[in-house]
């Protein structure tokens, strides 16, 4: 784990692998379960995984309250590290941050991969595009989140105190950034035309948090996007099928830009 200072933020960053730069923005929960995916990516890329401020054991500056703050922070990170032609990958909540970055500036971003991303409102005011994870019974929440919950979910009783604390802080921080409006920015949809980078929208076929149909709508709203469904996977396909998602990203990286 490295520390990178950006303004008043001391960003905690996991670095792995060699090659072209890939910035992976994690989702709201199950951070540790991304390890295998990160290892897969590290075979081809120099993978940079920041822990969002307020998550895990990291500090959140007083003024950091919205996804906009995270978007600017990571745009600053790309500047500070002088990263170019970056492969930007976001999962769930992290995909929302990635979209917010891209509508602002794609100068240093070569390609964008969105995995079961949140952040955009497509339906009407009485339609729930994104399942209310805070109102679902625990069992149903797990069923909607994973294709095989038993394989992905940790045994919380056996966690060390600091590991359990990190998860509690992840969940609190996700609520802080995403509680209302719920996991989306009402203004984001009208700016999606600014995401002027080749984009791969990756979706778990069994995602019950944001259905694949939402991913299709997202693809259609972006200027240059393709869609790939991952079978036998829920909201975090990179956790349940790390090899397949990494392979999809690899193919996308090698594909020609039209």
């Amino acid at each position, binding site marked *: 784990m490295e520390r990178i200072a950006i303004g008043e933020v001391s960003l905690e960053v996991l670095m792995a692998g060699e090659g072209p730069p890939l910035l992976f923005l994690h989702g709201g929960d199950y951070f540790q379960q991304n390890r295998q995916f990160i290892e897969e990516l590290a075979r081809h890329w120099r993978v940079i995984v920041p822990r969002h401020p307020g998550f895990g054991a990291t500090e959140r500056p007083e003024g950091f*309250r919205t996804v906009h703050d995270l978007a600017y922070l990571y745009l600053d990170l790309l500047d500070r590290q002088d990263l170019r032609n970056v492969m930007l990958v976001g999962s769930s909540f992290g995909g929302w941050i990635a979209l917010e970055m891209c509508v602002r500036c794609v100068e240093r971003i070569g390609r964008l991969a969105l995995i079961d991303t949140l952040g955009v409102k497509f339906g009407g005011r009485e339609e729930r595009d994104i399942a209310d994870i*805070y*109102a*679902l*019974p*625990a069992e149903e*929440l797990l069923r909607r989140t994973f294709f095989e919950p038993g394989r992905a979910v940790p045994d*919380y*009783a056996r*966690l060390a*105190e600091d590991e*359990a*604390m990190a*998860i*509690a*802080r992840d*969940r*609190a*921080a*996700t*609520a*802080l950034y995403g*509680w*209302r409006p719920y996991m989306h920015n009402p203004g984001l949809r009208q700016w999606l035309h600014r995401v002027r980078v080749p984009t791969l929208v990756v979706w778990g076929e069994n995602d019950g948090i944001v259905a694949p149909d939402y991913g299709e709508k997202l693809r259609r709203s972006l200027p240059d996007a393709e869609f790939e469904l991952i079978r036998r996977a829920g909201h975090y396909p990179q956790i349940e099928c790390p090899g397949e998602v990494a392979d999809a990203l690899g193919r996308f990286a090698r594909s020609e830009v039209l």
Partner: protein
Amino acid sequence: MQVWHFSEMAYHPAWPQLGESYRVIIPSRLYDPKIGADLYHRYLDEWALCDELGINIMTNEHHATATCSDPVCTIPMAILARETKKVRLLALGMPIGNRSDPIRVAEEYAMIDVISRGRLEMGFVKGVPFEISPANTNPAELTERFWEAHDLILKAMTSLDGPFNWEGTHFHYRQVNVWPRPYQQPHPPVWTPVGSPESAIEAAVRGIVIGVLNTGWVRTPAIFEAYRSKAREVGREPTPDRLAYMALIGVGETREEGRRRADQILGYSRTSGIVAPQFANPPGYVSPRAAAQMLKAGGAMAARATRVQTKDGRPINPRTMSVDEAIDAGLSFAGTPDDVFAQLRAFYDHVGGFGHLLMMGQGGLLNHEETVANLKLFSKEILPRVGVLAK
């Protein structure tokens, strides 16, 4: 010692039809407004009677629940401000971290204070975790929003020279100017319910009266002691009138009658924690340390299940709690007037004293006649004796 009669105005007719949640997700078709109207009037009659009995009045509020059909604590207070003439009126209280408009709170409280000619006690509450979903407020910012609203309301009540500006983290106004100003100067006394030493300390720093509810024999002493020592540390004398304790009180001509009343009032304790577990601990509502402990223990409901304890620390299941267990736990004082006073006195000595007894004189299924008998007997036999406790 001041005594206050409290009822949650339960809508108990729906209880038999409710399953594993009495809150948040229950359909309102289970509420019959004709029965509800009768219930409102009887609960208000019981509070109005308190004016004659010398017992002060306390209301509260909860949302989307059949355990408490009072979602606006200032509405019964507005009625009672005019129906009563003598006793004091404690709203405990307004969930100011969940309400979007603190200025409206200042206006409601100021108006009640003026109508009642200065009898309002002004409660600000953070609210139990299951209040988050009905209000859809961000649980991770609740404490911060609570204190900002508190500061704004007090400034709004005490600023007498025209509009001021407030551009805070959570609330934005450019012309704050509350009319009427309160009857009591500079403002009505401020109360807040607390359930832990940490929150007692936050209140002690500001000299706020704390109402301690459902913490019982085991957990209450540390809360009161935290308040007293912090108050002394910041140069405030922690007089007993800064501390309040709530107990479920059933008093009867016979021990059997008093305990039977307490048993019915315990319908409150047996139902108030029944909530669909996903609403019991929204993320960020408690500290990361407390949330981590819940995660390891198998969730918020498991943690809640050990909160009520006997004197020797044995957990009691609140849903099946007997009168004996409730008395042992210090949650209830019940029996003859002598029994009740002896239990009150023992608790009082155990926790180092307090100035306000928040008496749940009605709860659960206790009907109007029984409630009136309970309140009258308390007033006649016990109220004259509490004077020897904190003055």
